[in-house]
Protein backbone atom coordinates (compact mmCIF):
# COMPACT_ATOMS: atom_id res chain seq x y z
CA UNK A 1 0.00 0.00 0.00
CA UNK A 2 2.73 2.41 1.09
CA UNK A 3 4.78 1.07 -1.78
CA UNK A 4 2.04 1.85 -4.29
CA UNK A 5 1.60 5.32 -2.88
CA UNK A 6 5.34 5.94 -3.24
CA UNK A 7 5.30 4.74 -6.85
CA UNK A 8 2.19 6.72 -7.61
CA UNK A 9 3.57 9.89 -6.04
CA UNK A 10 6.91 9.67 -7.83
CA UNK A 11 5.30 8.79 -11.16
CA UNK A 12 2.89 11.68 -10.83
CA UNK A 13 5.80 14.02 -10.15
CA UNK A 14 7.63 12.69 -13.20
CA UNK A 15 4.60 13.32 -15.33
CA UNK A 16 4.29 16.86 -14.14
CA UNK A 17 7.79 17.52 -15.37
CA UNK A 18 7.01 15.85 -18.70
CA UNK A 19 6.11 19.15 -20.43
CA UNK A 20 9.75 20.18 -20.00
CA UNK A 21 10.78 17.04 -21.82
CA UNK A 22 8.17 17.05 -24.58
CA UNK A 23 10.49 16.84 -27.53
CA UNK A 24 12.54 13.88 -26.31
CA UNK A 25 9.39 12.14 -25.13
CA UNK A 26 7.78 12.73 -28.51
CA UNK A 27 10.70 10.94 -30.15
CA UNK A 28 9.75 7.82 -28.24
CA UNK A 29 6.05 8.15 -28.94
CA UNK A 30 6.57 8.76 -32.66
CA UNK A 31 9.25 6.11 -32.98
CA UNK A 32 7.09 3.47 -31.36
CA UNK A 33 4.03 4.58 -33.31
CA UNK A 34 6.05 4.06 -36.50
CA UNK A 35 7.16 0.59 -35.50
CA UNK A 36 3.66 -0.47 -34.58
CA UNK A 37 2.11 1.06 -37.71
CA UNK A 38 4.55 -0.77 -39.97
CA UNK A 39 4.30 -4.04 -38.11
CA UNK A 40 0.53 -4.01 -37.98
CA UNK A 41 0.03 -2.97 -41.59
CA UNK A 42 2.45 -5.54 -42.97
CA UNK A 43 0.90 -8.26 -40.85
CA UNK A 44 -2.48 -7.02 -42.06
CA UNK A 45 -1.34 -8.11 -45.50
CA UNK A 46 -0.85 -11.67 -44.45
CA UNK A 47 -4.13 -11.65 -42.53
CA UNK A 48 -5.90 -10.27 -45.60
CA UNK A 49 -4.23 -12.78 -47.85
CA UNK A 50 -5.28 -15.67 -45.65
CA UNK A 51 -8.85 -14.35 -45.59
CA UNK A 52 -8.95 -14.17 -49.38
CA UNK A 53 -7.46 -17.59 -49.82
CA UNK A 54 -9.87 -19.10 -47.36
CA UNK A 55 -12.57 -18.12 -49.85
CA UNK A 56 -10.84 -19.84 -52.73
CA UNK A 57 -11.48 -23.48 -53.47
CA UNK A 58 -14.09 -26.04 -52.57
CA UNK A 59 -13.91 -29.37 -50.81
CA UNK A 60 -15.69 -31.16 -53.64
CA UNK A 61 -13.15 -30.09 -56.20
CA UNK A 62 -9.73 -31.57 -56.65
CA UNK A 63 -6.74 -30.24 -58.50
CA UNK A 64 -4.31 -32.60 -60.19
CA UNK A 65 -0.68 -31.57 -60.76
CA UNK A 66 2.38 -33.39 -62.01
CA UNK A 67 3.89 -35.39 -59.20
CA UNK A 68 6.26 -33.33 -57.08
CA UNK A 69 5.25 -29.94 -58.37
CA UNK A 70 4.14 -27.80 -55.49
CA UNK A 71 2.26 -25.30 -57.63
CA UNK A 72 0.49 -25.04 -60.94
CA UNK A 73 3.23 -22.85 -62.39
CA UNK A 74 5.80 -25.59 -62.06
CA UNK A 75 3.51 -28.38 -63.18
CA UNK A 76 3.03 -29.86 -66.66
CA UNK A 77 0.58 -32.52 -67.83
CA UNK A 78 0.54 -33.83 -71.38
CA UNK A 79 -2.66 -34.53 -73.30
CA UNK A 80 -2.45 -38.21 -72.61
CA UNK A 81 -2.24 -37.68 -68.85
CA UNK A 82 -5.09 -35.19 -69.01
CA UNK A 83 -7.25 -37.83 -70.72
CA UNK A 84 -6.36 -40.47 -68.15
CA UNK A 85 -7.15 -38.10 -65.28
CA UNK A 86 -10.61 -37.45 -66.67
CA UNK A 87 -11.34 -41.18 -66.38
CA UNK A 88 -10.60 -41.17 -62.63
CA UNK A 89 -13.12 -42.46 -60.10
CA UNK A 90 -15.39 -40.13 -58.11
CA UNK A 91 -15.67 -37.40 -60.72
CA UNK A 92 -19.10 -35.95 -61.18
CA UNK A 93 -20.70 -36.60 -64.57
CA UNK A 94 -23.21 -34.47 -66.37
CA UNK A 95 -26.53 -35.59 -67.82
CA UNK A 96 -24.77 -36.95 -70.89
CA UNK A 97 -22.39 -38.99 -68.78
CA UNK A 98 -19.39 -36.76 -69.45
CA UNK A 99 -16.99 -36.03 -66.57
CA UNK A 100 -17.01 -32.42 -65.34
CA UNK A 101 -13.37 -31.38 -65.47
CA UNK A 102 -11.25 -28.56 -66.76
CA UNK A 103 -7.70 -29.09 -68.04
CA UNK A 104 -5.97 -25.78 -67.56
CA UNK A 105 -2.80 -23.92 -68.29
CA UNK A 106 -1.56 -20.49 -67.22
CA UNK A 107 0.51 -17.76 -68.74
CA UNK A 108 1.79 -14.55 -67.27
CA UNK A 109 0.66 -11.23 -68.72
CA UNK A 110 2.22 -7.94 -67.93
CA UNK A 111 -0.33 -5.22 -67.16
CA UNK A 112 -0.17 -1.69 -65.89
CA UNK A 113 -1.83 -0.70 -62.65
CA UNK A 114 -4.34 2.10 -62.76
CA UNK A 115 -3.04 4.00 -59.75
CA UNK A 116 0.70 4.20 -60.32
CA UNK A 117 1.15 2.70 -63.79
CA UNK A 118 3.51 0.06 -62.39
CA UNK A 119 3.87 -3.14 -64.37
CA UNK A 120 2.45 -6.19 -62.67
CA UNK A 121 2.35 -9.83 -63.67
CA UNK A 122 -1.16 -11.14 -64.02
CA UNK A 123 -2.33 -14.67 -64.66
CA UNK A 124 -4.06 -15.52 -67.92
CA UNK A 125 -5.69 -18.87 -67.26
CA UNK A 126 -6.59 -21.15 -70.09
CA UNK A 127 -9.56 -23.30 -69.10
CA UNK A 128 -11.42 -26.29 -70.51
CA UNK A 129 -14.79 -26.15 -72.26
CA UNK A 130 -16.60 -27.35 -69.10
CA UNK A 131 -15.09 -24.71 -66.90
CA UNK A 132 -18.46 -23.16 -66.08
CA UNK A 133 -19.73 -26.50 -64.80
CA UNK A 134 -16.54 -27.05 -62.81
CA UNK A 135 -16.82 -23.56 -61.31
CA UNK A 136 -20.49 -22.76 -61.03
CA UNK A 137 -19.62 -19.78 -58.81
CA UNK A 138 -18.21 -17.96 -61.84
CA UNK A 139 -20.70 -15.33 -63.03
CA UNK A 140 -20.34 -12.96 -65.96
CA UNK A 141 -21.26 -9.54 -64.57
CA UNK A 142 -20.58 -7.53 -67.70
CA UNK A 143 -20.31 -8.46 -71.38
CA UNK A 144 -20.29 -12.13 -72.31
CA UNK A 145 -18.29 -15.35 -72.14
CA UNK A 146 -15.42 -15.86 -74.57
CA UNK A 147 -15.97 -17.94 -77.70
CA UNK A 148 -13.87 -20.99 -78.54
CA UNK A 149 -10.97 -20.68 -80.97
CA UNK A 150 -10.84 -16.89 -80.97
CA UNK A 151 -8.50 -14.70 -78.96
CA UNK A 152 -11.07 -13.46 -76.50
CA UNK A 153 -10.67 -13.15 -72.72
CA UNK A 154 -12.86 -12.47 -69.73
CA UNK A 155 -11.34 -10.56 -66.82
CA UNK A 156 -11.86 -11.00 -63.13
CA UNK A 157 -13.57 -8.23 -61.20
CA UNK A 158 -10.57 -7.13 -59.15
CA UNK A 159 -8.20 -7.33 -62.12
CA UNK A 160 -10.72 -5.17 -63.99
CA UNK A 161 -10.70 -2.53 -61.28
CA UNK A 162 -6.93 -2.60 -60.73
CA UNK A 163 -5.47 -2.56 -64.21
CA UNK A 164 -5.60 -0.33 -67.23
CA UNK A 165 -7.02 -1.51 -70.54
CA UNK A 166 -9.30 -4.24 -69.24
CA UNK A 167 -12.68 -2.76 -70.10
CA UNK A 168 -15.01 -4.70 -72.32
CA UNK A 169 -13.92 -3.98 -75.90
CA UNK A 170 -10.29 -3.24 -74.97
CA UNK A 171 -7.57 -5.25 -76.63
CA UNK A 172 -4.62 -6.70 -74.71
CA UNK A 173 -1.49 -7.37 -76.73
CA UNK A 174 0.39 -10.27 -75.31
CA UNK A 175 1.89 -13.62 -76.16
CA UNK A 176 1.90 -12.77 -79.84
CA UNK A 177 -1.80 -12.22 -80.02
CA UNK A 178 -4.39 -9.52 -79.57
CA UNK A 179 -6.80 -10.54 -76.87
CA UNK A 180 -10.15 -8.82 -76.92
CA UNK A 181 -11.79 -8.33 -73.55
CA UNK A 182 -15.38 -9.54 -73.96
CA UNK A 183 -16.58 -9.82 -70.37
CA UNK A 184 -15.99 -9.28 -66.67
CA UNK A 185 -16.56 -12.10 -64.19
CA UNK A 186 -16.76 -12.58 -60.48
CA UNK A 187 -16.17 -15.70 -58.42
CA UNK A 188 -17.33 -14.61 -54.98
CA UNK A 189 -14.17 -12.80 -53.90
CA UNK A 190 -11.66 -15.56 -54.42
CA UNK A 191 -8.21 -15.30 -55.97
CA UNK A 192 -9.45 -16.02 -59.53
CA UNK A 193 -10.94 -12.54 -59.62
CA UNK A 194 -7.39 -11.26 -59.98
CA UNK A 195 -6.86 -13.19 -63.22
CA UNK A 196 -7.97 -13.34 -66.86
CA UNK A 197 -9.43 -16.40 -68.54
CA UNK A 198 -9.63 -17.81 -72.03
CA UNK A 199 -9.75 -21.26 -73.61
CA UNK A 200 -6.75 -23.42 -72.88
CA UNK A 201 -6.71 -24.70 -76.45
CA UNK A 202 -6.55 -21.15 -77.80
CA UNK A 203 -3.64 -20.35 -75.52
CA UNK A 204 -1.76 -23.53 -76.36
CA UNK A 205 -2.23 -23.13 -80.12
CA UNK A 206 -0.85 -19.60 -80.02
CA UNK A 207 2.42 -20.19 -78.23
CA UNK A 208 2.82 -23.88 -79.17
CA UNK A 209 3.64 -24.95 -75.63
CA UNK A 210 1.55 -28.01 -76.08
CA UNK A 211 0.67 -29.07 -72.58
CA UNK A 212 -1.65 -28.42 -69.70
CA UNK A 213 -0.51 -27.62 -66.20
CA UNK A 214 -3.38 -28.84 -64.11
CA UNK A 215 -6.72 -30.56 -64.23
CA UNK A 216 -9.48 -29.43 -61.93
CA UNK A 217 -12.26 -31.96 -61.39
CA UNK A 218 -15.67 -31.54 -59.79
CA UNK A 219 -16.28 -34.56 -57.56
CA UNK A 220 -19.53 -36.37 -56.78
CA UNK A 221 -19.13 -35.16 -53.22
CA UNK A 222 -16.35 -34.11 -50.86
CA UNK A 223 -16.10 -37.71 -49.68
CA UNK A 224 -15.33 -38.93 -53.19
CA UNK A 225 -11.91 -37.32 -52.97
CA UNK A 226 -10.13 -40.38 -51.58
CA UNK A 227 -11.52 -42.63 -54.32
CA UNK A 228 -10.46 -40.12 -56.97
CA UNK A 229 -7.00 -39.82 -55.54
CA UNK A 230 -6.59 -43.58 -55.18
CA UNK A 231 -7.71 -44.25 -58.72
CA UNK A 232 -5.14 -41.83 -60.12
CA UNK A 233 -2.23 -42.89 -57.93
CA UNK A 234 -2.85 -46.55 -58.67
CA UNK A 235 -2.66 -45.87 -62.42
CA UNK A 236 0.93 -46.73 -63.44
CA UNK A 237 0.68 -44.51 -66.50
CA UNK A 238 0.21 -41.41 -64.33
CA UNK A 239 2.65 -39.61 -62.05
CA UNK A 240 0.47 -36.99 -60.40
CA UNK A 241 -0.35 -35.33 -57.11
CA UNK A 242 -4.01 -34.96 -56.20
CA UNK A 243 -5.01 -32.24 -53.73
CA UNK A 244 -8.33 -30.92 -52.56
CA UNK A 245 -8.73 -27.55 -54.18
CA UNK A 246 -9.27 -25.74 -50.89
CA UNK A 247 -6.16 -27.30 -49.38
CA UNK A 248 -4.16 -26.39 -52.45
CA UNK A 249 -4.96 -22.72 -52.19
CA UNK A 250 -4.50 -22.68 -48.46
CA UNK A 251 -1.09 -24.23 -48.88
CA UNK A 252 -0.20 -21.64 -51.51
CA UNK A 253 -1.29 -18.75 -49.34
CA UNK A 254 0.42 -20.24 -46.32
CA UNK A 255 3.78 -19.98 -48.01
CA UNK A 256 3.15 -16.42 -49.03
CA UNK A 257 1.64 -15.32 -45.76
CA UNK A 258 4.59 -16.89 -43.94
CA UNK A 259 6.92 -14.84 -46.12
CA UNK A 260 4.91 -11.69 -45.44
CA UNK A 261 4.88 -12.39 -41.71
CA UNK A 262 8.62 -12.94 -41.72
CA UNK A 263 9.08 -9.64 -43.54
CA UNK A 264 6.77 -7.96 -41.02
CA UNK A 265 8.70 -9.30 -38.05
CA UNK A 266 12.13 -8.64 -39.57
CA UNK A 267 11.29 -5.07 -40.60
CA UNK A 268 9.30 -4.50 -37.40
CA UNK A 269 12.10 -6.06 -35.36
CA UNK A 270 14.79 -3.84 -36.88
CA UNK A 271 12.63 -0.77 -36.35
CA UNK A 272 11.85 -1.95 -32.84
CA UNK A 273 15.55 -2.12 -32.01
CA UNK A 274 15.82 1.47 -33.20
CA UNK A 275 12.84 2.43 -31.09
CA UNK A 276 14.33 0.71 -28.04
CA UNK A 277 17.44 2.84 -28.44
CA UNK A 278 15.35 5.97 -28.84
CA UNK A 279 13.47 5.04 -25.68
CA UNK A 280 16.72 4.24 -23.87
CA UNK A 281 18.13 7.59 -24.89
CA UNK A 282 15.03 9.47 -23.85
CA UNK A 283 14.67 7.70 -20.54
CA UNK A 284 18.37 8.09 -19.76
CA UNK A 285 18.11 11.80 -20.34
CA UNK A 286 14.88 11.92 -18.35
CA UNK A 287 16.69 10.22 -15.47
CA UNK A 288 19.76 12.47 -15.84
CA UNK A 289 17.59 15.55 -15.79
CA UNK A 290 16.10 14.31 -12.55
CA UNK A 291 19.18 12.94 -10.78
CA UNK A 292 18.97 15.73 -8.23
CA UNK A 293 15.27 15.10 -7.67
CA UNK A 294 15.80 11.37 -7.40
CA UNK A 295 18.63 11.85 -4.93
CA UNK A 296 16.50 14.23 -2.87
CA UNK A 297 13.58 11.82 -2.79
CA UNK A 298 15.90 8.98 -1.85
CA UNK A 299 17.36 11.09 0.95
CA UNK A 300 13.85 11.80 2.22
CA UNK A 301 13.32 8.06 2.44
CA UNK A 302 11.73 6.98 -0.83
CA UNK A 303 12.80 3.47 -1.80
CA UNK A 304 14.75 2.56 -4.88
CA UNK A 305 11.89 0.32 -6.02
CA UNK A 306 9.69 3.40 -6.31
CA UNK A 307 12.32 5.01 -8.53
CA UNK A 308 12.52 1.95 -10.80
CA UNK A 309 8.79 1.64 -11.03
CA UNK A 310 8.26 5.30 -11.78
CA UNK A 311 10.81 5.38 -14.60
CA UNK A 312 9.37 2.17 -16.02
CA UNK A 313 5.86 3.54 -15.69
CA UNK A 314 6.81 6.65 -17.62
CA UNK A 315 8.48 4.61 -20.39
CA UNK A 316 5.52 2.28 -20.50
CA UNK A 317 2.97 5.06 -20.75
CA UNK A 318 4.89 6.81 -23.53
CA UNK A 319 5.14 3.47 -25.33
CA UNK A 320 1.48 2.77 -24.82
CA UNK A 321 0.53 6.11 -26.34
CA UNK A 322 2.84 5.43 -29.28
CA UNK A 323 1.52 1.91 -29.70
CA UNK A 324 -2.11 2.97 -29.71
CA UNK A 325 -1.39 5.79 -32.18
CA UNK A 326 0.51 3.40 -34.45
CA UNK A 327 -2.21 0.77 -34.37
CA UNK A 328 -4.91 3.36 -35.06
CA UNK A 329 -2.90 4.82 -37.95
CA UNK A 330 -2.52 1.38 -39.48
CA UNK A 331 -6.22 0.77 -39.05
CA UNK A 332 -7.27 4.17 -40.44
CA UNK A 333 -5.02 4.09 -43.47
CA UNK A 334 -4.77 0.45 -44.36
CA UNK A 335 -7.76 -1.50 -43.13
CA UNK A 336 -9.76 -2.54 -46.19
CA UNK A 337 -7.20 -1.17 -48.64
CA UNK A 338 -6.71 -3.43 -51.59
CA UNK A 339 -3.19 -4.42 -52.40
CA UNK A 340 -1.78 -6.69 -55.03
CA UNK A 341 1.17 -8.92 -54.73
CA UNK A 342 2.92 -11.41 -56.89
CA UNK A 343 4.89 -14.42 -55.89
CA UNK A 344 4.39 -17.95 -54.71
CA UNK A 345 2.54 -20.11 -57.14
CA UNK A 346 -0.27 -17.67 -57.73
CA UNK A 347 1.10 -14.89 -59.85
CA UNK A 348 -0.46 -11.57 -59.09
CA UNK A 349 -3.19 -11.46 -56.50
CA UNK A 350 -5.43 -8.75 -55.23
CA UNK A 351 -6.70 -8.79 -51.69
CA UNK A 352 -7.80 -6.53 -48.88
CA UNK A 353 -5.60 -5.63 -45.94
CA UNK A 354 -7.24 -6.75 -42.73
CA UNK A 355 -6.19 -4.79 -39.62
CA UNK A 356 -7.93 -7.03 -37.12
CA UNK A 357 -8.35 -6.16 -33.41
CA UNK A 358 -5.96 -9.01 -32.61
CA UNK A 359 -3.31 -7.40 -34.80
CA UNK A 360 -3.82 -4.05 -33.12
CA UNK A 361 -3.44 -5.65 -29.71
CA UNK A 362 -0.30 -7.39 -30.91
CA UNK A 363 1.06 -4.01 -32.01
CA UNK A 364 0.35 -2.46 -28.62
CA UNK A 365 2.01 -5.41 -26.88
CA UNK A 366 5.11 -4.82 -28.99
CA UNK A 367 5.02 -1.16 -28.01
CA UNK A 368 4.91 -2.10 -24.32
CA UNK A 369 7.84 -4.49 -24.71
CA UNK A 370 9.84 -1.73 -26.43
CA UNK A 371 8.91 0.67 -23.63
CA UNK A 372 9.96 -1.74 -20.88
CA UNK A 373 13.25 -2.57 -22.62
CA UNK A 374 13.97 1.11 -23.15
CA UNK A 375 13.08 2.01 -19.57
CA UNK A 376 14.77 -0.83 -17.75
CA UNK A 377 18.40 0.31 -17.77
CA UNK A 378 17.63 3.97 -17.07
CA UNK A 379 15.36 2.78 -14.25
CA UNK A 380 18.18 0.70 -12.80
CA UNK A 381 20.45 3.71 -13.02
CA UNK A 382 17.93 5.71 -11.03
CA UNK A 383 17.72 2.94 -8.46
CA UNK A 384 21.47 2.43 -8.07
CA UNK A 385 22.21 6.13 -7.75
CA UNK A 386 24.62 6.67 -4.84
CA UNK A 387 22.51 9.20 -2.97
CA UNK A 388 25.23 10.97 -0.99
CA UNK A 389 27.32 11.44 -4.14
CA UNK A 390 24.42 12.64 -6.26
CA UNK A 391 23.46 15.21 -3.63
CA UNK A 392 26.94 16.77 -3.85
CA UNK A 393 26.77 17.16 -7.63
CA UNK A 394 24.77 20.35 -7.95
Amino acid at each position, binding site marked *: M*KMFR*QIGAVTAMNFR*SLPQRVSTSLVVVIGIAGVVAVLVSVLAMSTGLIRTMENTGRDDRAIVLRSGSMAETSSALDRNSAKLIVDGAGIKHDANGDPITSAETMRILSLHKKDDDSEINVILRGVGPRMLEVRPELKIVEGRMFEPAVTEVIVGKSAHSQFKGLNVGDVVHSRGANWTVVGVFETGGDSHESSLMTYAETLISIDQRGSFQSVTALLDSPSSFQAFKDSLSSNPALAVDVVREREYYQQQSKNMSTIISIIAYVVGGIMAVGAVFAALNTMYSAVSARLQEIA*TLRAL*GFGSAAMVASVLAEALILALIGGVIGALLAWMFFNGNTVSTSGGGMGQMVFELAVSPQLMILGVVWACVIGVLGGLFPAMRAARLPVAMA*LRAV
Partner: protein
Amino acid sequence: MTALVTLRNVTKSYVRGKQKVEVLHGIDLTIEPGEFLALMGPSGSGKTTLLNLVAGLDQPTTGEVLVAGDRIDQLSRGSLSDWRARHIGFIFQFYNLLPVLTAEANVEVPLLLTNLSKSERRRRVQVALELVGLAERARHKPNELSGGQQQRVAIARAIVSDPTLLVCDEPTGDLDRQSAEEIMNLLTALNRSHKKTIVMVTHDPKAAEYASRELHLDKGLLTNDTRRAA
Protein backbone atom coordinates in the same frame (compact mmCIF):
# COMPACT_ATOMS: atom_id res chain seq x y z
CA MET B 1 20.49 11.61 29.63
CA THR B 2 21.16 9.14 26.81
CA ALA B 3 22.85 10.57 23.76
CA LEU B 4 20.84 10.95 20.58
CA VAL B 5 23.87 10.45 18.37
CA THR B 6 26.94 8.43 19.25
CA LEU B 7 29.88 7.89 16.90
CA ARG B 8 32.61 5.53 18.06
CA ASN B 9 35.94 5.47 16.27
CA VAL B 10 34.35 6.19 12.93
CA THR B 11 36.49 6.25 9.82
CA LYS B 12 35.40 6.88 6.27
CA SER B 13 37.47 6.16 3.19
CA TYR B 14 36.73 6.81 -0.44
CA VAL B 15 38.27 4.88 -3.27
CA ARG B 16 39.57 7.30 -5.87
CA GLY B 17 40.86 5.38 -8.87
CA LYS B 18 43.23 2.81 -7.33
CA GLN B 19 43.87 4.89 -4.27
CA LYS B 20 42.01 4.60 -1.01
CA VAL B 21 41.70 7.96 0.71
CA GLU B 22 40.69 8.16 4.36
CA VAL B 23 38.60 11.30 4.84
CA LEU B 24 37.56 10.81 8.49
CA HIS B 25 40.11 9.38 10.90
CA GLY B 26 38.55 7.81 13.98
CA ILE B 27 35.85 10.24 15.01
CA ASP B 28 34.27 9.95 18.47
CA LEU B 29 31.28 12.15 19.03
CA THR B 30 28.09 12.29 21.07
CA ILE B 31 25.19 14.64 20.54
CA GLU B 32 22.56 15.07 23.23
CA PRO B 33 18.86 15.52 22.51
CA GLY B 34 17.98 19.18 22.16
CA GLU B 35 21.42 20.28 21.08
CA PHE B 36 21.95 22.70 18.20
CA LEU B 37 25.33 21.74 16.85
CA ALA B 38 27.31 23.74 14.32
CA LEU B 39 29.97 21.78 12.46
CA MET B 40 32.68 24.06 11.14
CA GLY B 41 35.89 23.55 9.28
CA PRO B 42 37.80 24.25 6.11
CA SER B 43 36.59 23.06 2.77
CA GLY B 44 37.38 19.41 2.22
CA SER B 45 37.79 18.68 5.93
CA GLY B 46 35.00 16.10 5.85
CA LYS B 47 32.01 18.02 7.26
CA THR B 48 29.52 16.79 4.67
CA THR B 49 30.91 13.28 4.94
CA LEU B 50 30.39 13.29 8.69
CA LEU B 51 26.91 14.78 8.39
CA ASN B 52 25.92 12.12 5.85
CA LEU B 53 27.01 9.38 8.26
CA VAL B 54 24.89 10.85 11.06
CA ALA B 55 21.93 11.23 8.66
CA GLY B 56 22.15 7.66 7.38
CA LEU B 57 22.89 8.78 3.83
CA ASP B 58 26.18 6.96 3.83
CA GLN B 59 27.85 4.15 5.75
CA PRO B 60 31.13 4.40 7.69
CA THR B 61 34.12 2.34 6.59
CA THR B 62 34.77 1.29 10.21
CA GLY B 63 33.34 2.24 13.58
CA GLU B 64 29.86 2.47 15.07
CA VAL B 65 27.12 4.98 14.36
CA LEU B 66 24.28 4.94 16.85
CA VAL B 67 21.42 7.35 16.16
CA ALA B 68 18.08 7.40 17.98
CA GLY B 69 18.90 4.00 19.43
CA ASP B 70 19.66 2.31 16.10
CA ARG B 71 23.04 1.02 14.94
CA ILE B 72 22.60 2.54 11.52
CA ASP B 73 26.02 1.36 10.34
CA GLN B 74 24.52 -2.11 10.45
CA LEU B 75 21.30 -1.38 8.55
CA SER B 76 20.81 -2.49 4.97
CA ARG B 77 20.37 0.13 2.28
CA GLY B 78 16.64 -0.56 2.08
CA SER B 79 15.97 -0.31 5.78
CA LEU B 80 18.24 2.72 5.97
CA SER B 81 15.94 4.67 3.67
CA ASP B 82 12.93 3.74 5.84
CA TRP B 83 14.96 4.78 8.85
CA ARG B 84 15.76 8.18 7.31
CA ALA B 85 12.08 8.73 6.58
CA ARG B 86 11.28 8.19 10.25
CA HIS B 87 14.15 10.02 11.92
CA ILE B 88 15.81 12.63 9.71
CA GLY B 89 14.68 15.99 8.38
CA PHE B 90 16.99 17.31 5.66
CA ILE B 91 17.80 20.92 4.85
CA PHE B 92 20.12 21.40 1.89
CA GLN B 93 22.22 24.33 0.73
CA PHE B 94 20.30 24.58 -2.55
CA TYR B 95 16.92 23.76 -0.96
CA ASN B 96 16.36 20.74 -3.26
CA LEU B 97 12.68 21.43 -3.69
CA LEU B 98 10.91 19.59 -6.49
CA PRO B 99 10.43 22.29 -9.13
CA VAL B 100 7.16 20.95 -10.52
CA LEU B 101 5.42 20.88 -7.15
CA THR B 102 3.83 23.77 -5.27
CA ALA B 103 5.18 24.72 -1.86
CA GLU B 104 2.48 22.72 -0.08
CA ALA B 105 2.99 19.69 -2.32
CA ASN B 106 6.72 19.87 -1.62
CA VAL B 107 6.08 19.96 2.09
CA GLU B 108 3.72 17.00 1.78
CA VAL B 109 6.33 14.76 0.11
CA PRO B 110 7.74 13.16 3.30
CA LEU B 111 4.18 12.47 4.49
CA LEU B 112 3.56 10.31 1.42
CA LEU B 113 5.81 7.79 3.17
CA THR B 114 3.49 7.61 6.17
CA ASN B 115 0.05 6.11 6.59
CA LEU B 116 -1.60 9.43 7.37
CA SER B 117 -4.92 10.22 5.73
CA LYS B 118 -5.11 12.90 3.09
CA SER B 119 -6.86 15.36 5.40
CA GLU B 120 -4.34 14.74 8.18
CA ARG B 121 -1.51 15.26 5.71
CA ARG B 122 -3.08 18.52 4.58
CA ARG B 123 -3.47 19.69 8.18
CA ARG B 124 0.18 18.99 9.00
CA VAL B 125 1.39 20.72 5.84
CA GLN B 126 -0.65 23.75 6.84
CA VAL B 127 0.84 23.77 10.35
CA ALA B 128 4.39 23.43 9.02
CA LEU B 129 3.94 26.22 6.47
CA GLU B 130 2.48 28.49 9.16
CA LEU B 131 5.44 27.74 11.39
CA VAL B 132 7.87 28.95 8.74
CA GLY B 133 5.59 31.90 7.96
CA LEU B 134 4.71 30.93 4.41
CA ALA B 135 1.08 29.84 4.68
CA GLU B 136 0.00 32.40 2.11
CA ARG B 137 2.56 31.06 -0.41
CA ALA B 138 1.27 27.49 -0.24
CA ARG B 139 0.24 27.40 -3.90
CA HIS B 140 3.45 28.90 -5.28
CA LYS B 141 5.99 26.92 -7.23
CA PRO B 142 9.63 27.11 -6.07
CA ASN B 143 10.62 29.34 -9.00
CA GLU B 144 8.04 31.87 -7.84
CA LEU B 145 9.74 32.18 -4.45
CA SER B 146 12.93 33.92 -3.27
CA GLY B 147 15.87 31.86 -2.08
CA GLY B 148 15.04 32.56 1.56
CA GLN B 149 11.42 31.58 1.01
CA GLN B 150 12.45 28.40 -0.75
CA GLN B 151 14.68 27.50 2.14
CA ARG B 152 11.78 28.09 4.51
CA VAL B 153 9.64 25.74 2.45
CA ALA B 154 12.47 23.23 2.69
CA ILE B 155 12.51 23.67 6.47
CA ALA B 156 8.76 23.09 6.57
CA ARG B 157 9.33 19.90 4.58
CA ALA B 158 12.09 18.87 7.01
CA ILE B 159 9.91 19.24 10.10
CA VAL B 160 6.52 18.15 8.74
CA SER B 161 6.98 14.51 9.66
CA ASP B 162 8.35 15.47 13.10
CA PRO B 163 11.75 13.81 12.70
CA THR B 164 14.13 13.01 15.56
CA LEU B 165 16.96 15.02 14.08
CA LEU B 166 17.33 17.92 11.65
CA VAL B 167 20.46 17.89 9.53
CA CYS B 168 21.44 20.97 7.53
CA ASP B 169 24.36 21.26 5.13
CA GLU B 170 25.20 24.95 4.75
CA PRO B 171 21.56 26.04 5.00
CA THR B 172 22.51 29.70 4.51
CA GLY B 173 25.29 29.08 2.01
CA ASP B 174 23.26 30.36 -0.90
CA LEU B 175 21.47 33.24 0.83
CA ASP B 176 22.06 36.93 1.38
CA ARG B 177 22.72 38.19 4.90
CA GLN B 178 19.13 39.18 5.60
CA SER B 179 17.61 35.88 4.47
CA ALA B 180 20.37 33.99 6.25
CA GLU B 181 19.44 35.68 9.51
CA GLU B 182 15.78 34.80 9.01
CA ILE B 183 16.68 31.18 8.42
CA MET B 184 18.96 31.07 11.46
CA ASN B 185 16.26 32.64 13.62
CA LEU B 186 13.84 30.02 12.38
CA LEU B 187 16.22 27.17 13.14
CA THR B 188 16.93 28.63 16.58
CA ALA B 189 13.21 28.85 17.27
CA LEU B 190 12.75 25.25 16.19
CA ASN B 191 15.55 24.27 18.54
CA ARG B 192 14.40 26.34 21.50
CA SER B 193 10.61 26.18 21.31
CA HIS B 194 10.14 22.84 19.61
CA LYS B 195 13.11 21.05 21.16
CA LYS B 196 14.43 19.98 17.77
CA THR B 197 17.92 18.56 17.78
CA ILE B 198 19.85 20.15 14.93
CA VAL B 199 23.17 19.31 13.33
CA MET B 200 24.26 22.05 10.96
CA VAL B 201 27.32 22.23 8.75
CA THR B 202 28.35 25.81 8.03
CA HIS B 203 31.24 27.92 6.83
CA ASP B 204 29.74 31.04 8.25
CA PRO B 205 30.88 31.99 11.78
CA LYS B 206 27.84 34.28 12.10
CA ALA B 207 25.51 31.37 11.48
CA ALA B 208 27.48 29.23 13.89
CA GLU B 209 26.85 31.78 16.64
CA TYR B 210 23.21 30.75 16.74
CA ALA B 211 24.17 27.21 17.71
CA SER B 212 24.50 25.92 21.27
CA ARG B 213 27.63 23.99 20.43
CA GLU B 214 30.41 24.50 17.91
CA LEU B 215 32.48 21.63 16.64
CA HIS B 216 35.54 22.03 14.46
CA LEU B 217 36.74 19.50 11.98
CA ASP B 218 40.14 19.71 10.34
CA LYS B 219 41.54 17.18 7.87
CA GLY B 220 39.19 14.52 9.13
CA LEU B 221 39.80 15.05 12.84
CA LEU B 222 37.70 16.86 15.45
CA THR B 223 39.81 19.68 16.84
CA ASN B 224 37.65 21.98 18.89
CA ASP B 225 34.41 21.46 20.77
CA THR B 226 32.79 24.51 22.35
CA ARG B 227 29.52 24.68 24.22
CA ARG B 228 27.79 28.00 24.56
CA ALA B 229 25.63 28.88 27.52
CA ALA B 230 22.02 29.14 26.46
